[in-house]
Structure formats: C-alpha cells, structure tokens
C-alpha cells in the first residue's frame, strides 16, 4: 500500500482545483480573452451598431441552443432541428401567405408539428433504444423529405410583414434578444429550482440510479426532446422574420452550431453536467468569433478553421479538466 506524501497531496489538490476552475469558468475566460483581443484586432466590435448585429444574430442560435443543451444534459443529441427550421419557415409562409392575422395559427401549427417531431425523436431513443445520433439524423432526413414532397422543392407563400418586428431594435435591445433572455431565465429557473430540472440532471448523470430512485427516465427524455423541438420552432419563426423570405436552406448549420455552443459552454456530451449560463457564453463566443472574422476580412475557409479550433480546444480543455477523474 502506498501513502501519498504531503507535498504530493497538495500538488494533486491544486491540480484538482485548477481542473475544477477550468471546468466551471473556462468558457467565460475564453470569452473575456476574445473580447480583450477584439479591442486590438477589431475595435469596431464595440460600436453600438455592431453589438446590435451580434446580439440579433446570436439570438437565432441562442434560442435553439437552449433546447440542445437540455437534450445534451440527458445524454441525447438532436440533429433534426435543421429540418424543423425549414418546416417552420414553410408553414408560416404557407399558412399565412403574407396575412398578419394568421401568424398565431401558423405558429401554433408549426409548434404542434415540431412537438410531433420531438415526440418521434424521444420515442425512438427511449422505446426503441435507437442511438440519438441515428434517430435524429433519420428524423432530419424524414422532415426535409416531407417538406420537399409538400413543396415539390419550391417553398411558396409570403412571410407576413408583422414578423419583420424581429428586425427592429432600440440600441442593442431587440425583441428576439428579450425573448432569448426570457427563455434562458425561465429554463435556468426550471433546471436549477424545480424537481423537473433535478430529474433532467439525474437522468443524464446516471440513468440507472435515476430509474432506481423512481424517476420516469423515459418521460423525462421524451419531454426534453419535445421541448427542444418546440424551441427550434421558436427559433425558426425568429429566423423566418429575420430573412423575410421562404428559404429552403434557412438555418443550415445551426443544428451543429447549437451543439458546438453547448459543448464549448461546458455541457458534457455524455450528459449530466453543464448548464444554460455556459451555453449563453458559448453562443456569444461563436457569434463574436464569426463577426470578428468578417470584420477582419478573413476568408471563409479561415473562419471554418478558427471555429473548428475553438471547438476542439474547448473539448480538449474540458477533457483535461474532467473532475470526475
């Protein structure tokens, strides 16, 4: 039997504290470092107009990242949200055909369809034991195929003018920003202060332990998938108003960006660890990086490389800082 020497214990303790610090605050430090770098590289970032642009664009990713974070917390994953964006855009334009008075029914229909997609994901993952990657990828293809079959490849209709309200801002404050902050506040409260939130973390941390302690694991998982899909619909409505046009490629890439934002923000891919504050920082980090790249006139290829490096860097840091080990 070996006994740790006192200085070795101290060293190990300080290493553990460092890892804990990185795990808890890594994304905020990275965000702060980026903002400091921007003062030299792209001072224009601090212009009110630029901040307004960053915040407005961040909300589209931010809203969907809330759902993605919650799904990751139960050790899931959702790729189908890419299809939900397109479906939402088509439903809003098709149902309203530009008429403001039909916006609410259109959104309700989109929410119902989104919930159906989430329910399908949840049932596949829980009842059929299909891995989340496969289940949601299949659902993505199904939803995209269904929208193509419905539109024959040509989305029609008009986006109602009233949705243009998402483009109005007062300094940096806009309706999508308030919506994003409100949804974050609500779901942070849910995750931290309610029994449902504790169950979400419990299911992600240790499914068997959660099951043995009486939690209905499948119900929690399915509900989180449904919530994630509904939040994707909300983000899709914001995005549709932002573009003001039915675009078959609307929201392309946001499904992967939302996963990246959550992971960079410290949510574990294996579930049970992380939270929405980190995701907010992750969303801002990705959005500010993108805006800085354009402000610096970097080629798109360089932008992809930088984004990839940030994600890989974050994942590497978190794996080093894995406090459980």
């Amino acid at each position: 039997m070996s006994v740790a020497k006192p200085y070795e214990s101290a060293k190990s303790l300080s290493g553990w504290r460092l890892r804990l610090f990185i795990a808890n605050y890594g994304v905020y430090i990275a965000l702060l470092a980026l903002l400091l770098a921007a003062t030299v590289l792209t001072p224009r970032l601090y212009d009110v107009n630029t901040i307004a642009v960053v915040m407005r664009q961040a909300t589209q990713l931010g809203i969907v990242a809330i759902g993605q974070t919650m799904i990751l917390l139960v050790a899931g994953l959702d790729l189908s949200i890419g299809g939900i964006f397109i479906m939402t855009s088509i439903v809003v334009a098709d149902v309203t055909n530009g008429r403001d008075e039909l916006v609410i029914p259109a959104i309700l229909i989109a929410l119902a369809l989104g919930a159906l997609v989430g329910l399908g994901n949840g049932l596949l993952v829980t009842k059929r034991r299909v891995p989340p990657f496969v289940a949601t990828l299949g659902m993505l293809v199904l939803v995209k195929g269904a929208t193509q079959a419905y539109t024959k490849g040509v989305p029609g209709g008009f986006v109602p003018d009233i949705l243009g309200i998402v483009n109005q801002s007062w300094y940096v404050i806009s309706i999508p920003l308030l919506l994003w902050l409100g949804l974050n506040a609500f779901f942070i409260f849910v995750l931290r202060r309610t029994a449902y939130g504790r169950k979400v973390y419990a299911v992600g941390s240790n499914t068997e332990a959660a099951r043995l302690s009486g939690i209905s694991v499948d119900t929690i998982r399915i509900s989180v998938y449904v919530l994630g899909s509904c939040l994707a619909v909300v983000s899709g409505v914001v995005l549709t108003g932002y573009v003001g046009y039915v675009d078959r490629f609307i929201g392309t890439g946001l499904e992967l960006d939302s996963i990246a934002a959550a992971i960079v923000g410290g949510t574990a891919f294996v579930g049970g660890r992380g939270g929405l504050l980190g995701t907010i920082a992750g969303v801002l980090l990705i959005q500010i990086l993108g805006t800085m790249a354009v402000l610096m006139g970097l080629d798109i290829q360089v932008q992809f490389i930088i984004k990839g490096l940030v994600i890989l860097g974050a994942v590497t840091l978190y794996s080093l800082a894995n406090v459980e080990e």
Partner: protein
Amino acid sequence: MLRKLFYALFILSLLLGTSLVSIGQDDGMMEFEITQEMIDASPYLQSVLSRLDEVYDTSEFAKDPPYRIALAAQGTSNAWSALFDAHAYWYVEELGEDVVSELLYGDAQASADVQVPQVEDLLAQEPDALILVPMGAAALSAPVERAMMQGVPVVLCASAVETDNFVTEVGTNLFNIGAMLAQWLIEAVGEDGDFVMMTGIPGVTTSVIMEEGALAVFDSYGIELLDNQPGMWSPAEGKKIMETWLAQHGDAIDGIWTGGAQQAQGIISAYEDAEMAIPPIAGGEQQNGFLRSALEHGFDFLAWMYPNAMITLCLDAAVQILQGEPTPRFIDFINDMPEARPFTHAEAEDYYEPSWSDDVHGPITMSDEALAELGFLIEESG
C-alpha cells in the same frame, strides 16, 4: 453551303461576343476588354475560348430516333432548378415521343456527392445521350470521361467540368458575366468608389468563375475591395454578412457586387432594417422578388440572366448530336435566347411580373397554366 455559312457566322459572333462585351444601357454602351493576362490566369476562360471555334463531328453517335436521354439535373433544391426541370419535361413533350421516347431523370439535390453515383446509375440504363448539370467541376470530370468512353455523348448544361472530353457545353461565358457586372459597378460609382463583393458558394464552379472575372476587372483598375465574403446564395447568410458590413463601414459602401439575386434579397433586407439608402448593386437577376424590391426602393442595379429555360437548348443539342449533325462545342444561350440579355434598373418594370411569385427566375417559355400548376402564380387572397 448554307450550313457552313451559318456556322461561320455563329463562330464569328461568339468570338466577337467573348472578346468584347457590350451592355445596352439607357446612358449608352459599356465595354471592357478581356486581356491576355486574364486569359492566362483562368483555365476556364482558356477552355471556353479554345472551344469557340471548334465543331464536334458527331457522326459516331448518329442513330435513328426516338431517343432515350438521361438528364442529371441539379434537382429539388430551389425555384431555379424546379423551373429548369419543368421546362425539361415540357420541352420533351413538345418534341414528341417520336423524337424523345424517354427522359431518364437524376435529382442531385444540388450536391456533387449525390450526383457522382447518380450519373453512374443513369449510365447503367444505357441512355443515348447524357445531359449533365455539373454540381462540381472536379468531382464530375471522371463520370463525364466514363460516359464518353462508354459511347454516350455528353452535353454539359449550365456549368462546366475540368475535362475537355465532352461534346458540347450550353451556358454562357461566366467569366465575362462576372467581369461585366464589376465593370458596370465601377462605371456606375466611379473608380474611387469603395466596393464590397458577395460571392455564392465557395468551390461551386459558377460562383468561382464569376468571382474570377469580377476580380480581374477590379484588379485592372487597381481597386482594393473593402471585403469579399460568400453569401452562400442564401438570403439569410447574405443578410448576416451585409449587416456586419453596414456596422463596419456604414454608408462608406458605394457599390455591391453580388453573385446572385437570392443573397441580394438579404442585402436589401439589411439596408431596409438599417434604414439606409441602397447603393448600386451589380448582380441581380430576373428574379421576381429581387425586381419587386428594386422597384420598391428604386436603387440602381445591373441584372444578368441565367435562364432555366436553357435546358431546351441542351435537349436540342442532344438531339442534334444523335442525328449526327456537327455541333459547336460551346453554345452560348444568349445567341438563341436574345431575351436573356442583361438589363438595368431602367427596365425593371418591363421584367417584373406581378402575377409571379417572388422566387420565379425568368425568362419563362412555358404557359401561365403550367406555371400555375407548379405553384408559381400568386393566388388572389380573399
């Protein structure tokens, strides 16, 4: 004799059209010259120019009708390709079953990865000819070579590949288009202007070649662009980029070069939100939504046309090849579809069609009934 005279005149017109581009404008004619330096720097331009005076002897492909023609199309991806497909089916009916008995169709969903195996599948059905809308110049080169080796004549439609081993290409000189748009912008704004450039999807041949042409002209004037970013032919991406540019440069942007009308709608939307005057835009198209916005806001623009109806010329070329008639190796649609010429804001009202939906790309050769069936006509709402 008459045929030889026709080809001589045809080749002469192509040579003149390629070396010196002119655009009719309300304020006169505008010209730019393709220099040897530009040709040396562009493999695409070298390929197009070398094929201008070539005619393919197609006697080896001659056979009796009716023909089975394979169409490897862009597929269900946007309104342009939907109308392209609709024109294809409509024109096959027009030609009649005694000319084209079957149209074998492949839907690439705008992806080279999907299209490469799809071409193999189409070739396995032993068509008499292959019409290909290449989704990637490099990726589709090998399938084109294989088709020719198999004895299936290939007609490239609307885009190019890297090999020269095909019978003919129907399209237009995209380098010239990119250059022409840049030239118009410089003349509209002045050489001292500050310009931004929004290209299409990086790596897609059409976008890359247009960018090459535009940059050659900007370079020839010693103009340094404020920025050059891809708008991915998407209104959403176009708007995001334009918003950032507006935050960065404000009203210092004097002119915008864009590689397509869809992202131009994003550009216009960003200006609307910022409540700023829209500067001249080079790169609109006869896309109804773009024209509607242009008429609402009254900004100056130059639009070009890439008619989805060019598939009718591709089908004509395929039939011509199978009848063993000598075929020019480059067929510029502008010579056969004079209505598909560039136009400016001065003619916007002539090209805007209120009964069409925003995503219709003109010119359209089909009837209104056919358009209505496809859902491209606006229904009167209660």
